């Protein structure tokens, strides 16, 4: 690699990750302060990046008639088995419908009844034709005049005297190292996939549910900057269609089908109030008692409903349609088998992420977080991520005139550049893919992956901790031949750190709170008296040690 060019950019707000929350943050910042300078740093291209790249077919957090902010909060409290931040969820819930209206206003097709209401898919969910949702949001964000750095990978925050005042990033197109100085930084990098060995092997390893490109950068950057994280131990394991890993929600909610075991018995009664985690656990229990595989019984669908189902999948997970075409069968000709995915760390479904205040400010001055990377508020989905993006933008704009101008020393820039680009200059070593494979094997086998039926136990987790420390040492030998591999090397580093933090959280909570997501064989009971608390962590990058602490649920 030839020499690197250093490019310094001055801005008011830097948004890390141009996904759902990031685009909305840019739009809101511009609406609140027209003269506000905003930079969006996006590793792919904002037109089709992150969770929304393929599209969506529902808005999963919406208050249909009869639902209120309070009823939403109570729903989330049940889903989170008591541990959640009411202030965060309530602030988000109050904006869900307005965010959805925004999408409709910008051009996303959302069908309505003649009476003007959107079509409900469940109590808190509506149908949308969302294949183009991301390009539509991106166009809006771009029209604000924000500077969008596409194909630019954020690697670390610029920290000056315990304050975050910018972002280091590098371009995937040419050897350019960005030093983006900002009064406020909003982190919207999404959650983390790829920590565990995925469902599909080898040639299909990328066919997972959560985007492979959301590699946990925001969590890792936050940990390295000393930010407090919460709820990592509430992992998210999705119940999905086997092989294609397509969401089942479209089927189960969109057209009402039952979940049955191999004997044809329905094991989740109709109208059950089981939480998402309990539904997954019930499916696993059927498997372990010899009544698997389990299925979604689509055989009762009419031809029209089956057609509707295919169309809905094209808007969100096209490979499901391909799967039917490959047999070839129609959706109503065979039930489809379901399975759990590998565990993810994602604050938008579960609650792993930055510990934030109601304004989405993290514990580090100058740093805010929104969307899947922010903690304490499960069940955000698209509209909740947008709501949080807007809240964070409001807080950021409020900070603008309060914080002193950002500073960064030339020495520090040179040091960072050297550290980040090191894999390009090593002669020999291990490729990022091989190291990620090793990480995934360790997490799968020792930290409750698919092969362990997600079950956790102290001694195994301690072994995971030990092995992760070894893997971390291997990162000193990572090699990259081009900028793409340099990104992969960074993703590997980030995943290893997030995995290490996750293991600490899993070890700390000595009870079993969330079926399947967090089930300890050595502490199988839920203990509300002792453990109805948040488990939070901070990382010391100098010593490599984590400090765990508890915070009360209010």
């Amino acid at each position, binding site marked *: 690699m030839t020499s690197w060019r250093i490019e310094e950019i001055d801005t008011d707000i830097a948004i890390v990750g141009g996904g759902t929350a990031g685009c909305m943050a840019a739009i809101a910042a511009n609406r609140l302060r027209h003269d506000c300078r905003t930079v969006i740093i996006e*590793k*792919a*291209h904002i*037109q*089709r*990046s*992150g969770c929304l*790249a*393929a599209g969506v077919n529902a808005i999963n957090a919406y208050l249909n008639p009869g639902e209120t902010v309070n009823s939403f909060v109570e729903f989330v409290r049940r889903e989170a088995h008591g541990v959640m931040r009411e202030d965060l969820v309530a602030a988000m819930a109050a904006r869900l419908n307005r965010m959805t209206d925004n999408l*409709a206003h910008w*051009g*996303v*097709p*959302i*069908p*309505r*009844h*003649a009476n003007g209401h959107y*079509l409900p898919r469940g109590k808190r969910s509506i149908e949308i*034709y969302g*294949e*183009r949702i991301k*390009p*539509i949001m991106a166009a809006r964000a771009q029209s604000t005049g924000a500077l969008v750095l596409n*194909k630019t990978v954020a690697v670390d925050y610029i920290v000056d005297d315990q304050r975050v005042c910018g972002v280091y990033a590098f371009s*995937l*197109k040419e050897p350019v190292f960005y030093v983006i100085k900002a009064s406020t930084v909003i982190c919207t990098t999404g959650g983390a996939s790829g920590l565990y060995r995925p469902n*599909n*092997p*080898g*040639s*299909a*390893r*990328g*066919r*997972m549910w959560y*985007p*492979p*490109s959301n590699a946990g950068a925001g969590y890792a950057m936050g940990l390295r900057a000393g930010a407090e994280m919460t709820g990592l131990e509430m992992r998210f394991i999705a119940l999905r269609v086997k*092989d*294609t890993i397509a969401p089942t929600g479209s089927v189960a909610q969109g057209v009402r089908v039952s979940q049955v075991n191999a004997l044809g018995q329905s094991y989740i009664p109709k109208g059950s109030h089981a939480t998402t985690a309990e539904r997954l656990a019930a499916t696993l229990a059927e498997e372990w008692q010899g009544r698997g595989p389990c299925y979604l019984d689509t055989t009762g669908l009419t031809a*029209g409903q089956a*057609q*509707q189902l*295919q*169309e809905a999948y*094209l*808007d969100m997970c*096209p*490979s499901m*349609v*391909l*799967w039917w*075409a*490959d*047999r*070839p069968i129609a959706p109503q000709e065979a039930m489809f088998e379901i399975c759990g995915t590998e565990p993810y760390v994602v604050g938008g479904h579960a609650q792993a992420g930055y510990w934030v205040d109601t304004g989405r400010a993290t514990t580090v001055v100058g740093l805010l977080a929104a969307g899947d990377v922010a903690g304490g508020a499960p069940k955000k989905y698209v509209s909740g991520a947008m709501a949080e993006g807007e809240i964070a933008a409001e807080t950021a704009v409020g900070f603008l005139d309060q914080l002193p101008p950002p500073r960064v020393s030339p020495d520090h820039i040179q040091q960072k550049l050297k550290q980040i680009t090191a894999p390009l200059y090593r002669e020999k070593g291990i490729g990022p*893919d091989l190291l990620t494979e090793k990480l995934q094997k360790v997490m799968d086998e020792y930290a409750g992956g698919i092969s362990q039926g997600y079950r956790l136990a102290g001694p195994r987790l301690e072994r995971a901790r030990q092995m992760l420390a070894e893997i971390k040492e291997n990162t000193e030998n990572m090699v990259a031949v081009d900028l*793409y591999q340099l*990104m992969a090397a960074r993703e590997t580093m980030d995943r290893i750190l997030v995995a290490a933090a996750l293991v600490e959280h899993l070890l700390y909570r000595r009870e079993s709170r969330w079926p399947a997501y967090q089930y300890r064989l050595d502490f199988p009971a839920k203990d509300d008296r002792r453990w109805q608390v948040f488990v939070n962590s901070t990382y010391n990058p100098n010593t490599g040690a984590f400090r765990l602490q508890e915070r009360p649920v209010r």
Partner: protein
Amino acid sequence: MSIVWDPRVCTGCPHTPEPPCARVCPCNLLYRGHDGKLACRDKTGCWDCAACVKACPNEALYLSLPPVIGGNGARLYGRAYRDHTAWRIQLSGGKVIEIKRPALNKIVQSTCGVESSSNSPKTE
């Protein structure tokens, strides 16, 4: 090995700084190779999102399931137009199904007042 492209159809989009397919890949897998045609860094990392498929102006790309989860040769083509997305599904037996989905809401507002989706599929 989920995305497949026909090098005879792919022009490499020489007049664009970055081919449309490569631009939109959320995983940054695609690029213009030395031969001026599309190339992929690592097919096993493909998320199957079809963003590249819909962005190609020449329909040179399609999705196909890798043998480990499929392998019977069905293909999914698609193309994003301003107000709709046109999908073409080639079943493993060779039959082709076309489905149009609305992508910008003017259409929906004018045609959809009731429950069902507005675009009934054409079947060949």
